[in-house]
């Protein structure tokens, strides 16, 4: 493969916006969610694991919620079934919040970027 000569002459990137402050604020949020390298000490490893597990559960919980709503709208559930389903999901949400608090994790900590699917939360 041969390349004919080119002269790139690229300039230093310019950044243009009329809303510097806003973008700084938003981009800072993104930078703040950069994954930290978890150190070997036992405390952090446990938290890292908790974060992973809770993220997975949270992901599934949201899918469950969506599916429940879909079925509710579909009209093939009895009022009692809807009520039971709702109560169960409500308790699941509460329990998960409890666990988050227990491990000192905020919503943002579980807010992993799922690429094309977007962010979890």
């Amino acid at each position, binding site marked *: *493969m041969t*390349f004919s000569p*080119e002269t*790139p*002459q*690229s*300039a*230093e*990137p*310019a*950044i*243009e*916006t*009329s*809303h510097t402050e*806003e*973008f700084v604020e*938003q*981009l800072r*949020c*993104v930078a703040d969610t*950069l994954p*930290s*390298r978890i*150190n070997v000490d036992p405390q952090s490893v446990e938290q890292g694991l908790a974060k992973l597990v809770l993220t997975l559960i949270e992901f599934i919980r949201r899918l469950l*919620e*969506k599916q*429940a*709503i879909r079925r*509710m*709208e579909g009209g093939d559930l009895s*009022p009692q079934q*809807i*009520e*039971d*389903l*709702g*109560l*169960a*999901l*409500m308790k699941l949400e509460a329990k998960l919040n409890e666990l988050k608090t227990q491990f000192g994790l905020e919503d943002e900590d579980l807010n992993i970027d799922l690429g*094309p699917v*977007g*962010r979890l*939360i």
Partner: protein
Amino acid sequence: MLNSYLYCVAHEDPNFKDELSGLDGRGVEVLNHDALFVVASKFDGEMVPVTRENVLQHEAIVRTTFSTTTVLPFRFGCLVTTSGLRSYLTIRERALLERLAHVRDCVEMSVKIIWQNSSENEDSGCVVPNLDEAGAGTAFLMLKRQELLGSDRVEQEARELEAWLGAGLRDIVRQEQITIEPKQRLVLSASYLVERARLTDYRRELGRLQAERTNLHFLSSGPWPPYTFANIDLEFGTHFGVS
């Protein structure tokens, strides 16, 4: 074992006029392997700290190379052993040359959009059931349903934004990559691979689009070396961290 810190790949020797200093104050070297040239520097340690200095240094070296020739940039934090690099270059030689041809004569331009998204808590106009009569569980599901409808709408609006931007710029750029995050204020982040010859067209079209939607806040930046369109470091674990 001493690692090499990688900056970028090129198809010809960049022939730096001056000695460049890389991360950790190590000298920047150009390694040659068949038709490929890799800009790298020696690095002590297993992890590259994400600091202002390191980030800017990485960008500066990639950009300096980019001013002399076509490059495929590595993302920040690529560490590799000499043998690892050699194997990689051997296996991937053709793919890398193809990619270099793909980004030839091009720069990366970025657009980010912030919106004032107020539709989340609006009355969606749907029939809200009488929550007093429903049990707690049913009420819970009803509220979640409202939320879901709201977020569906927001997602639709975000996709519409993506389509609108694409419609304007697609014919001008060689490649695009757009990410949308409907729930965030920074709703859209786009990167475009633009031929240098078409930069004027690109800027004019972008200006036109911005004027069309004054309720949106835009940030445009560039030209950048084609970080987004290189994707050459998927095989390397990147070793950066913030502790």
